């Protein structure tokens, strides 16, 4: 039986899906960890990015943050954080992944608020809007495409990176692959391949769903911007 066939057999065995620690359990863990990491990333990065964009300061800081996180190996954070005060379990993994969600969210929030046409901003000020009103009623609505693009980049990256949680036995779909490598290619080649297919499918599915969502929340007149944002959003971090 070749490896593709045994992967197929693995995926077709209902017990592999429903057993404790089976595919469904792992998928649940994967989604919980990813969602928590993205949520923390949003809570930390969005206010800072929006505020920096609004005040027009700190562009250098954002470049520094994304350069730094690009150089830090995910595996390193995943192994170091459990040994700190965060202790073992899900929290250190979620925090480690949140760190890699921050740069795309931060830079897109900053760029999104920053790119608002200065004339629009002046017009709003001339109409008597205060700083907070300007932010809430002019800058934020115009920044929506960028915010959505940043969210999508961050979420897809976190879902991809969550697979690495398996290196420290942290759960998620990557666990299936890691367990397979533990058993060896000869015994579990099919399981490894099946795990790879599942992880890749999840990442591509999330990418597709969020691309759709991004399109839905972007008002039609701002849509041509979207493609440009895609290209300008520098993919950060190693997934």
């Amino acid at each position: 039986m070749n490896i593709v066939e045994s992967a197929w057999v693995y995926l077709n065995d209902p017990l592999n899906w429903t057993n404790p620690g089976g595919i469904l359990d792992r998928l649940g863990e994967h989604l919980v960890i990813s969602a928590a990491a993205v949520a923390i990333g949003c809570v930390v990065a969005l206010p800072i990015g929006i505020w920096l964009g609004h005040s027009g300061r700190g562009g250098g800081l954002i470049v520094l943050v994304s350069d730094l996180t690009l150089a830090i190996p995910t595996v390193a954070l995943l192994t170091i954080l459990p040994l700190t005060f965060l202790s073992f379990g899900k929290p250190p993994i979620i925090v480690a992944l949140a760190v890699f969600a921050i740069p795309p969210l931060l830079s897109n929030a900053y760029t999104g608020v920053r790119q608002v046409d200065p004339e629009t901003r002046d017009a709003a000020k001339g109409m008597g809007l205060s700083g907070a009103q300007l932010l809430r009623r002019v800058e934020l609505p115009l920044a929506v495409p960028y915010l959505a693009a940043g969210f999508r980049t961050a979420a897809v990256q976190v879902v991809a990176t969550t697979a690495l949680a398996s290196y420290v036995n942290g759960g998620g779909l990557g666990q299936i692959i890691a367990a397979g490598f533990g058993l060896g290619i000869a015994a579990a080649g099919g399981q490894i391949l099946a795990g790879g297919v599942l992880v890749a499918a999840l990442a591509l599915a999330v990418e597709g769903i969020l691309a759709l969502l991004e399109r839905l929340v972007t008002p039609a007149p701002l849509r041509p911007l979207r493609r440009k944002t895609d290209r300008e959003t520098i993919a950060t971090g190693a997934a």
Partner: protein
Amino acid sequence: MSLRDLAYQDAANPWFSWDYIRTNSSTILDALGEHVTLTAEAVALAMVVAVPLGVVAYWFRPLSGPILALSGVLYTIPSLALLAFIAPAVGPTKSTSVLIGLVLYALLLIVRNTLAGLNQVPKEAQEAATGMGYGRFGRLIRVDLPLALPGILTGLRLATVSTVALVTIGALIGKGGLGNLILGGFQNNFFKAEILTGTILCVLLALVLDLILIGAGRVLTPWTRRAR
């Protein structure tokens, strides 16, 4: 193991230890060597594939969409999944499995920046070159590519830094360079000194390679400095 033993172990498990580095210098240097080799091979191979792809995308506009989309999809596929696809086919104990994954990742960053660099070449320069009798290839080699060099170098820098970080995932099959130290330290009773040594060297390596590439870029593109 009693609780007291655990507490003692924690006390004797510092985050940084010169003693560890001294007694394990050959292991550390081997890991560093493997890391550098994998990074250099991956980035070099990715360059060889990605720059021509960027040129093809530049020459044949209709192809630029599919080329960018394909490398984007490759980039979206999680690294661990790529390893799971490649390792059974290539052999789980070979560093080639890691290498192929690294190349596929670096591809997008270099293709995209090469294309961006080529798109920035001023129309006037191209027209002047054509007027001077350059053919397509001559213009590419003598005019387009040199002027696109800042973009290509940006891609190269991004690819190098992220590859250095990404090599560590190869630790799952024991071919992760410094990642072997990081993961090995975790599995070896949470040996903090080993983990942090691997991490620090990894970040330093990324920084040093980035600085080398910045320096190379300044030497190779003197006109960008004169313009300022």
